[in-house]
Every structure is written in C-alpha cells, then in structure tokens.
C-alpha cells in the first residue's frame, strides 16, 4: 500500500471509519457478494491463496479509497481492477521466470507433491496455460478467466464494459486464440 493518499481522500476514509455509514454497509454487501469469487478468480492467475487474497484486498481497498465516478456498477469495477492486478502479477512473474529454469520444475519444487510424476505434469500444464494467458491480449485473457470462473454473460459484460450481446463473440474469439497458441507451443 503506498502512503500517498491524498489529504482529501484521507479525510474521507477517516469520516467513514467513525460509524458504519450506509455506504459502508453497502461495502460489506459487496464483500459478501464478490470476495470469494474474486479470490477464486485471482487464484487461477497466481496459483497461491495468500497472494490471491492480497490482490483481492487491494482491489477492495482501491474501490473504497478511490471509488469510481460512475458508481452504478461497483461489482464490475471491482473485477476489472482485480483482474488487472492479477494479470500484472502474473506477467511480472512470467518475466522473472523467463530467466530461470523450466517453469514446471519450479512449480514442482514449490508445491511438495505427493505423486511427483503426475504433479510435474499438471504443474507444467498450469504454467503453460498461465504463460499463454499472460501473452494474450488482456481483454481476451480476462474474458476466458471470467467465463471459466462461472460469471454470466451479463456479469462479464459489466466487467469488460461492453454490451451483453457481444460477450458470446468475445468468448468465441478468446477461445480460438487460446487454442491456437496452445497448439503452437506443443
């Protein structure tokens, strides 16, 4: 967390802390509604619950301290910010790994598997999938993750800020792109 909160915002935070305002109650609802799913979605990207929860918390903190001007869609905003944080984290890790040993081997070491051979295979699969996602256009990669995490077309539309009617097309394209990239690396 940076310490560069503006004075104005800081006062707003202080004011909010004193008594649960209607705004704050709404915020609790937002947690109830979105916390678990946002964490699950981020887990898919980073593969670690602690990190996923930290990222989700960052997204909630951002929503709290700098709420979007257009407030009719806080859920969509939350996922959008959370996804950006998640993909940034994923890409940062990919950059680090590029200089390191084969990804699957590291993942294997990190996770202490019970069945080494099987675990190695799925660790490699995870790293492959993640590196493809990191390399894809952000919107396409996000679409895949959102859809695969069980969000409805309406919800996906709210996150991506597009019309619900275009979500099918986005998913279809993203899937095709993913598959092409996957086939290419094999």
């Amino acid at each position, binding site marked *: *967390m940076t*310490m*560069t*909160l503006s004075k104005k915002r*800081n006062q707003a*935070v*202080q004011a909010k*802390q004193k008594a649960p305002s209607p705004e704050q109650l709404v*915020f*609790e609802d937002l*947690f*109830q509604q979105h*916390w*678990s799913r946002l*964490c*699950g979605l981020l*887990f*898919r*990207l980073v*593969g670690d*619950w602690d990190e*996923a*929860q930290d990222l*989700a*918390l960052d997204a*909630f*903190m951002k929503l*709290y301290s700098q709420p979007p001007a257009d407030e009719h869609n806080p859920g969509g905003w939350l996922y959008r910010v959370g996804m950006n944080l998640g993909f940034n984290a994923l890409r940062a890790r990919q950059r680090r790994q590029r200089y390191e040993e084969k990804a699957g081997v590291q993942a294997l070491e990190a996770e202490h598997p019970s069945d080494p051979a099987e675990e190695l295979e*799925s660790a490699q*699969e*995870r790293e*492959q*999938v*993640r590196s493809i996602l990191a390399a894809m256009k952000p919107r396409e990669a996000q679409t*895949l*993750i959102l859809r*695969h995490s069980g969000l*409805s*077309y309406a919800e996906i539309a709210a996150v991506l800020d597009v019309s619900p*009617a*275009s*979500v*099918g*097309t*986005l*998913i*279809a*394209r993203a*899937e*095709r792109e*993913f*598959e092409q990239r*996957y086939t290419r690396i094999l």
Partner: protein
Amino acid sequence: MHLSEGEIRAYQDQELSPDLLRHAQAHLETCPRCQARVAASQAVSQRVSAHLAALEPAPFQAPIPAKAGHARMKAQLTNLEKEKQNMWQKLTSRISRPVWATLAVIAILMVSLAFAPVRAIASSFLSMFRVEQIKVVQVNPADFQNKLGSSSQLEDMLSKSVQVDKNGEPKDVTSAAEASQLAGISVVLPADSGAPQKFVVQPSGTATMTVDLKLVQAVLTDLGRTDIKLPAALDGAVVKVEIPASVVAMYGDCQFDKTAAAQAVPEKGSSDLPRPDRLSNCTTFMQMSSPSVSAPPGLDLSQIGEAYLQVLGMTADEAASFARNVDWATTFVVPIPRDGAQYQDVQVDGVTGTFIQFLRSQHKYALVWVKDGILYTLSGPGDVSAALNLAGSLK
C-alpha cells in the same frame, strides 16, 4: 441468415435471449452448416475448458470467508491511519521524544553505516571517530519519510536499545567567559550583534546503543533492505555517542520557550540541521566540541553505508559513487531535502564549510563548519553573504 459466431457461442452457454433462442433453434433445425459450426465451437470450448481447469483450486480449497476479508480491509485502513499519524509525529514532534535519542539513532546509523572498516583501528579496544567535516547529501524527503514512517520496528529499537544520559540541565549564562568555562571551549560570538537575546549552555550527554541485531535487521527490512545481512559479530556491540556541552547564542526575534531552547542544539547538529522556519527572524549560533562516536573496531559495514544513502533516497549507483568520495572516518553526512534546499562549499575562518540555503522558508540559511575540533553552526535569515559576514565577525 446463418447464426453469428457470438450467437453460436451464447447458444452453447444458454445465454441467448428467449427471442434469439427461438430463432436459433428454428434455424439450426434446417441448417446443417450451422449445426456443424455449433459442434466445432463446442469442441473448441471443451478443449480450452479442459486446459483452464488446470488452474482451478483443488477441491475443498477456499479463500478466507468474506467477513474475514472485510475485517482485514478494516484493519488495513486503521493501520494506514496509524502509520500516517506515526509519520506525522516523527516529522513534526520531536517535542515528545528525547532529542538525544533521535540524535543517537542518526549517529548510530552513521557509525554502523558510514565509517569504513579501513579506518577502523585494528585494536581490540573501541575505535574512536570524531566529526571533523560535514558533507551534505541531497535526499528526496518523501521517500525517506515514507520508509521511516512505515517502519514499525524503529520505535521498538529506540525504546529497547538506546539509553540516553544527560549531564545536568541547560544553564543561562551572561558572558562568553562564563560560557567558555562551563562548556570547556573557547567561546566566540559575532562582534557586531550586541548581546545575545538568549545565551545558554546545553549540558553534555551520552547516548549508548547496544546493538540488537534482530531489531536492526527488522528496521532494515521495514526500510526495504532485506538484501543486507549484518555480521553476526555486531550483535551486542555497544555504540556510544558523546555529545559535548554546547553553547547556543540567539539573536533577533526568537522564541525563548523551553522547547525551542532545548531543541536548538541537537537540531543544529543533527541530520535535519535546518528548522529555521520555526524561528522566523531569529539567528542562532551554536558551538561545541565535535561530537564523537565509539564503536567496536573492524565492523565490516561499508555495504550498509551505501544502503544508508539509498534509504535516504539515492539510487544504488549514486550511493556507491558518493560513498567513494567521502572520508567516512571523519565526515558527518547530513541529509537535506533535494527540492527544498541548495548547498555550496564556502570558506569560513580558513576552513571549508557548508552553506545550505532553504528554498521554502524565505531566505533562511544554515552554515556549518568545523575548525580545530569545534563544530559551529550558524542559522538565520538571509543569503550567503549575510551568513559569511556574520561568521567573519566572530571573536
């Protein structure tokens, strides 16, 4: 008309609106081509889905409950507030904290950081260093303050490891002779300024720090320097800072309350030399035997010297290059804000001093020099010629 790619995909997910769904169903009954496209699309989706399934959490794995997440956020918000308050306290009120402790920490940082082992005397006794020169390093105060402000361990280190002893109380004096006798130095005063409005001798003092390696490391971690590993031998080492008695003479429109007087000395001699904005039209002249610092010899801490500079806001390269050009054994490295002050070397009384001009508090300056083992600081309103005139009139 055939179904669009998006309609086919939405049809698969049962996400078509009722109207579109009816249309799609009717069309599919009569269109083998679109039937084939649906099948192909489904096959792609299934394959992609199988790959993405690798990322799913294992069964029974879940994040902490939403309530706990919300509680965490509230805790973070509270911490943020506290940090800001702490930082504010650190920046503004040395009133509540013994000024010696602050000075001690800076001196300790310097010892552990600034004095290169080359100069450490290879004896089994304490090495002694004495301030003979001042060197200014420009820092970005925001960086420094953020890092320092967010160090939760610094307070702990201060309270547990640092012991401060002060020998007596400040004493008002009426003449240079009386001051000289009390302070044990030959006191000089500006010739043309008349009698000082306030003339006081501050008692000598000692700050002793017993190094607790774990705490120091924790502070370094807070400062973002986990890469620095201190030698284990440092643990338990005793670092002692001797601050001799000092003589403070104030001229002009000065605040004479206790706080200002008590703070005058350490402020002028310590890291943040300049606080002239507090004493708006006041000129302060301070003199004391150079403070000295003793520490166990042979501490190989040059790497932390660079870290110290980096903590102050330098890049690694800048720190390394700065470190090469300093005689660390005798130099007190004083940080000043990069955008709030300018500095230059000047000749004072036959030695090289450092002149600092503050940009934010209309024409305030600080002039610091060391001659014959005495540290002088002069601060007040005006520019470099005003400062040098005054310094030149000392008798």
